């Protein structure tokens, strides 16, 4: 364990971004998940989320649920001064991401009792029960129409997101296709 901590510490000193820290520190068996979180599908979505936040978010405190390997946001958004709290139900992801953020909470935002301070970003709505049925406030929601065993809620359109989550006031919406996967994004008040 001491050897690992020393190794991790050396990485933190020499690597310049959160992706590198994650890549070189997560156990090899989970490294492919870091790759998946940073593949072209997710990077394209992250770029769009990033631009929406820059244009529509004046708040300093932001919550990102189902944050998974969130190095992109650590590197880009946090450096702009946003104070982001991350939430993920995967204890192993949280353990890995502890190296790049002090604000990660291992909770299930759908089943556990969670209170948010500030707007909420959920970019994997296809994986969960509609969060808007449980919480109120300003939400940036995104989801895709992939169909897999673990996906309980494929998102086909922005109108599905709006309806499912009872979004009353839509500030922004976008649908786009990336390599035959359709993505939908909605920003609004619930």
């Amino acid at each position, binding site marked *: 364990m001491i050897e690992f901590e020393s190794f991790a510490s050396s990485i933190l000193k020499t690597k310049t971004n959160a992706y590198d820290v994650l890549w070189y520190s997560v156990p090899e*068996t989970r490294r492919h998940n870091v790759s998946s979180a940073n593949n072209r599908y997710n990077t394209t979505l992250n770029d769009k989320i990033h631009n929406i936040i820059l244009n529509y978010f004046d708040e300093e405190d932001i919550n990102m649920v189902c944050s998974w390997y969130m190095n992109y946001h650590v590197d880009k958004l946090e450096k702009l001064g946003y104070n982001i709290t991350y939430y993920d*139900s995967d*204890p192993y*992801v949280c353990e890995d991401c502890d190296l790049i953020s002090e604000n990660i909470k291992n909770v299930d935002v759908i*089943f556990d009792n969670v209170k948010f301070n500030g707007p909420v970003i959920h970019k994997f709505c296809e994986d969960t029960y509609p969060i808007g049925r449980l919480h109120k406030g300003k939400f940036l929601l995104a989801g895709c129409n992939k169909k*897999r*065993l673990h996906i*309980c*809620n494929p998102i086909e359109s922005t109108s599905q997101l709006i309806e499912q989550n009872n979004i009353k006031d839509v500030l922004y919406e976008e649908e786009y296709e990336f390599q035959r996967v359709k993505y939908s994004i909605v920003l609004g008040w619930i």
Partner: protein
Amino acid sequence: MAMTNFYCLKWGTKYGPQYVNRLFNSLKVHYDNPFSFTCLTDDSNGFDSDIIVDKIPTDFEEFPRTQIFTSEKMCYFNTYKHISGSKAWFDLDILIQNNITELIDRKKNKVTYIWNYWRNEEAHKTNYGWMTTPINSSFVAWQDDIGLDMYERLVKDKDKAFFTYPSYDKYLFYQEHRKGNIAFWEPGIVYNYNIGVSYPDDLEPTSHRPNYKICLFNTSHKAWAKPNETHIELDEAEGWAYDKWISYDRV
């Protein structure tokens, strides 16, 4: 000492009454104390007359019944909460091989489920987000009203649970196991006919493990099975397994 109560569920036509009768008879052979045996079913034709028949619970009937989200299993904790003593349920596609008295009668603070020791222990860590589970609910034991709190949580969270999880075992893993609410049988008790005993060293499907208490015949792993794994139901098995199973007709 309160009488022990055993339960099983027979729904639809996949398994015939011989599955229920042989399970009942195998318990006569492999459990030493007095017990009752109740089958929750929509069709009791062909059952042994000593089997108690009860109706399938309708607590969660507003949600579509699927083959795998067996919410009825959670209902055992509520329906029979007033009955004290040791209790256990068994899936029909299991084969009891040895005496299970100690397993049933030992004191339990938590409901006890099967941990799939034949699966890679790392898999559920590596693939946590991909709806994988190392839990199996084919042989589950508890006592008194332990487990009622799990039933009540499912009632409270039913909209979210049925929306999110394709199976009861996955719900258990992601919602109850992560909070430390359930216990597991230790290694050496249950094995899987179609996969083996323990990962990675003892994975030989269909081999007889005479010292184990219970053999499972799950075939739900079909979609992602490894090439050497088989998908044989109990009534399709040949040799030792089938011989053992039909031997319970003569009890």
